[in-house]
């Protein structure tokens, strides 16, 4: 009798597992009608300025859905506010992966927030394209499911250095940076670019994120008497240092990272001091006649009329363009493995940013940026073509993290 029970139980178990197997085999986040994609982005808190990235991605997906989606599937988009707090990012990743069963993550603002979930996403085999930060954490060393589209901060810095010296004839460059990974990777990029030219920075000055009084910093910079200062800061300090320098009669050529490339805002908050500042940028100018830019702008007017058409908003489009391209290349039969293969097959793909290429062991899509200049009234002037960077990223990583 006991044996019989046991046999019945085994049979039941086998039958039940048969019922569940098809579900287990189906791809997470992909159904007949939808592809589920998530993103975290600070809608509140100290970094909320970049919350526009996540809303931009949402607008992009709306546009694609309105065009009929991808191979008959609509993108279902989950945007969560993490307030730029890594613990919250972790909770969001867990919720979206385990509960909402998303297929992939798009973009996501922040180095610290992204680093908090990087391992988790890898372990759960969640594809992740276009983290919205240019640090080396994403693609070095390459990992299977993570693809970066943001040009590295060190590359941007080297492009600015080369532009200042070769095109503008500057001789003494100083570097003013935020004392964290963002600032330091920029710093080492500039150092390496200068070393290639047999030169050195004349001053390296750092600031803490919360510092509001930058007069001591400004004096240190001024004392080195540079003809060009490159800033690697956040907008608030980027504005404060320009004001402090103007007050002290310190007038070098200012340059900044793409983080401060929203010229309309920068011009306003610096009371016009931002005019003639040079900066790197990873996507077309806001008023670019590029057909994709015009199409995206229409999408913004239609789906996100309350948002401002600024660089950070359409960065949300740029960061995930390769993702959408790969989804299209996968065809109707979409799996994570197939998606990764399609991503690796992307070569010289260009949307509104530089040309992007991935490969089996290549996860950083590009090193190129262009140089822009702030014109009258905060106008965004593009003054160069896409320029790749030629520094060795491995050396930057060695200097920054000693690995």
């Amino acid at each position, binding site marked *: 009798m006991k044996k019989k029970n046991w046999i019945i139980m085994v049979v039941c178990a086998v039958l039940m597992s048969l019922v569940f197997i098809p579900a287990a085999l189906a791809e997470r986040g992909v159904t007949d009608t939808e592809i589920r994609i998530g993103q975290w982005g600070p809608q509140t808190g100290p970094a909320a300025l970049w919350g526009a990235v996540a809303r931009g991605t949402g607008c992009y997906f709306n546009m694609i859905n309105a065009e009929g989606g991808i191979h008959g599937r609509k993108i279902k988009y989950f945007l969560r506010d993490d307030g730029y707090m890594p613990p919250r990012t972790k909770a969001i990743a867990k919720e979206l992966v385990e509960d909402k069963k998303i297929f992939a993550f798009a973009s996501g603002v922040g180095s610290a927030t992204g680093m908090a979930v990087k391992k988790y996403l890898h372990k759960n085999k969640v594809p992740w394209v276009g983290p919205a930060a240019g640090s080396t954490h994403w693609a070095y060393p390459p990992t299977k499911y993570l693809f970066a589209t943001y040009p590295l901060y060190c590359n941007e810095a080297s492009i600015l250095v080369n532009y200042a010296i070769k095109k503008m004839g500057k001789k003494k460059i100083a570097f003013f940076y935020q004392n964290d990974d963002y600032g330091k990777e920029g710093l080492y990029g500039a150092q390496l670019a200068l070393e290639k030219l047999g030169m050195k920075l004349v001053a390296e000055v750092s600031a803490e994120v919360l510092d509001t*009084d930058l007069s001591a910093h400004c004096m240190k910079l001024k004392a080195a008497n540079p003809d060009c200062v490159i800033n690697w800061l956040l907008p608030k300090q980027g504005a404060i240092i320009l004001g402090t320098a103007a007050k002290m009669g310190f007038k070098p050529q200012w340059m900044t990272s793409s983080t401060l490339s929203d010229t309309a805002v920068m011009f306003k908050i610096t009371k016009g001091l931002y005019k003639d500042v040079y900066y790197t940028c990873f996507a077309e100018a806001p008023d670019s006649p590029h057909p994709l830019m015009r199409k995206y702008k229409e999408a913004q007017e239609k789906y996100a009329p309350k948002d401002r058409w600024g660089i950070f908003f359409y960065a949300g489009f740029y960061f995930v363009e390769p993702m959408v391209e790969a989804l299209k290349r996968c065809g109707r039969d979409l799996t994570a493995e197939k998606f990764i293969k399609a991503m690796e097959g992307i070569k010289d793909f260009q949307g509104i940013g530089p040309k992007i290429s991935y490969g089996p062991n290549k996860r950083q899509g590009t090193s190129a940026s262009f140089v822009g200049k702030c014109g009258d009234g905060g106008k965004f002037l593009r003054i160069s073509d896409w320029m790749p960077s030629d520094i060795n990223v491995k050396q930057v990583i060695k200097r920054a993290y000693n690995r």
Partner: protein
Amino acid sequence: MFLQLVISGISFGSLYALVALAMVIIYKTSEVPNFGQGEMSMLSTFVAYALLVTHSHSFIFSFIGALLFAAALGIFLEFVFLRRAKDPNILSLILITLGFQMMLYGLASWKWGADQRDLPFPVSDFDVINLGTAVISYLNIATILITLVLMFMLFLFFKYTKVGIAMKATQQNVMAARINGIRTNRILSLTWAMSSMIGAVAGILLAPIATLDPNLMLDPLLKGFAAAVLGGMTTLVGAALGGYMLGVIENLFGGYISLEFKSVVAFGIIVLVLCFKPSGLFAKHYVRKV
């Protein structure tokens, strides 16, 4: 270099002094360090911005409007939240002020978003007077003068007006003050209003330099608190002097010793003062109210 560091230090120190004053005024009556102070002045600064830029009123109108708003906000918070606390101990009161901080921060983020804004100010930070090797901007001068005038007014207020004296009485002994016919609840509301207004002035003076966003007072609040601890949480003059000292010490430290550790100086000072003279440098003696 030295002169410039001192001048910049005094000018930022004035702002710390204002924040410290605002904190001390409340601390003396409510016995609670108000950690919502920064956000209260940030919100008032945003009100000034809304009146000035969004509704294009004159600067004076906006300034006064923001001060009135600040007063109303102070009274509101004290009346609606603090006064309702049943048998409050200091810790629960501190938690309430932290609650304000989050609430007001959220409110400002929701209403004005995270974009940096420029608060136009009639006095420029770029027009400067040369003092030998150093410069001082008109805005710096205005900041220093306004702070001094405010401090002088506070001094007169506490010394010569009936309300001021009543306030001092309430600070010293609530029960005795009440027995003598002082309406201590009103006095309490008034201290919150005053403190909030002083904070608002600090915010409005800082915003043209540091740009306006919900994080405006994050750093100045910490520095103001450090200044108040340095000078003494129970003395107005001490707290103000603490503000100036902190501004100057911080800048000299950054200029001559280490820029990397400049922002840590304030916290180092808190620790040192609490270890060696917990009542603060300028408090005459540490009296525990019974």
